[in-house]
């Protein structure tokens, strides 16, 4: 798993590549916690190159969502592959996350007021 990080007009973008599993999800968690510690208002995670995600990856995102909500931050996940999306669906978590089909619509979700 690789994580690329960049800024785009106030939005913190993480692009994750590869599999998210029990072994590497703690790394992902550390990276997200850095952003959460800085109280980043807008976080976007690109998952277009993530072929597989397991429960620990899912739980990592849930925890990040909990923590960003606490300080009224926003977290958006974009470009989920079908296999990844079904992991969210079977855990009934597709409803609580803001999911976007493309990077553009994800950025729009974050930039639109409210």
């Amino acid at each position: 798993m690789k994580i690329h990080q960049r800024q785009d007009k106030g939005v913190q973008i993480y692009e994750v590549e590869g599999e998210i599993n029990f072994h590497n999800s703690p790394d992902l968690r550390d990276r997200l916690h850095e952003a959460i510690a800085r109280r980043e208002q807008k976080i976007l995670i690109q998952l277009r190159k993530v072929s597989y995600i397991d429960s620990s990856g899912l739980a990592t995102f849930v925890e990040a969502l909990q923590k960003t909500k606490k300080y009224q931050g926003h977290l958006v996940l974009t470009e989920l592959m079908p296999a990844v999306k079904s992991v969210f669906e079977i855990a009934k978590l597709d409803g609580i996350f803001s999911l976007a089909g493309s990077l553009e619509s994800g950025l729009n979700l974050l930039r639109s007021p409210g």
Partner: protein
Amino acid sequence: MSPSIIQVKKLSKSFGDRLVLNGINLVIPEGKITVIMGGSGGGKSTLLRHMVGLTKPDAGSIEIEREDIVRLAPEKMNDVRRKFGMLFQGSALFNSMSVFENVALPLREHTDLSDEIILIIVKVKLELVGLTGFEDFLPHQLSGGMRKRVALARAIALDPKIVFYDEPGAGLDPITASMIDQLILDLSQKLQITSVVVTHEMQSAFRIADQIVMLHKGKVLEVGRPEDIKTSSNPFVQQFIKGEHEGAIPFRQTREAYLKGLLET
């Protein structure tokens, strides 16, 4: 058909002088639901115990993802075991541990995840089996069906590739049983988990199976899709499906031995 994930070759096992498995050959396709059916004492549970490595066969081999688990060193076997989960017939929950601790156990033992993450995973798994809010209960405070669902949550805690079910519907009311069937279907269809189900309940078998294996007296009688099994010309299979007590499987097979035994004492 999809590629195979488990291959059983010429598996034989006897307990004492009773031959329980007699040269079983079997291929389990990846991502599908295989139901192993047969009468009591037909060797289906024994076959399952062999596939998870709890019993060693007298002869033959079992390959899980090309690794022969019969001849695997114990440490290597533990790596293979992380790929699968098992739902036991009697749930086999640890009675001194709460529901949360039971489901968290494999996560705590095999991963370095932090407690917060484990808590979330356990909550997700419990929601999956419809038991949100039962984290702090002890197993003896739950009904049989609930215990079974907790056991299922524990079996899938580590996101296994294969889940083995030993009589998942046994002792459950029809609603809980069909809920577990639906769960098996969901796991297979949405997450491509391979399922191996041992059962003697025809209804549930035909509802969920992609492939049915009929076992009788330690031998594979017939393998096929549910449609094929339904229209099978094999008299044993027909008798089993229709649940008739008279037929190719003689109910009174012991009559002569019985009379002989009575009169000769």
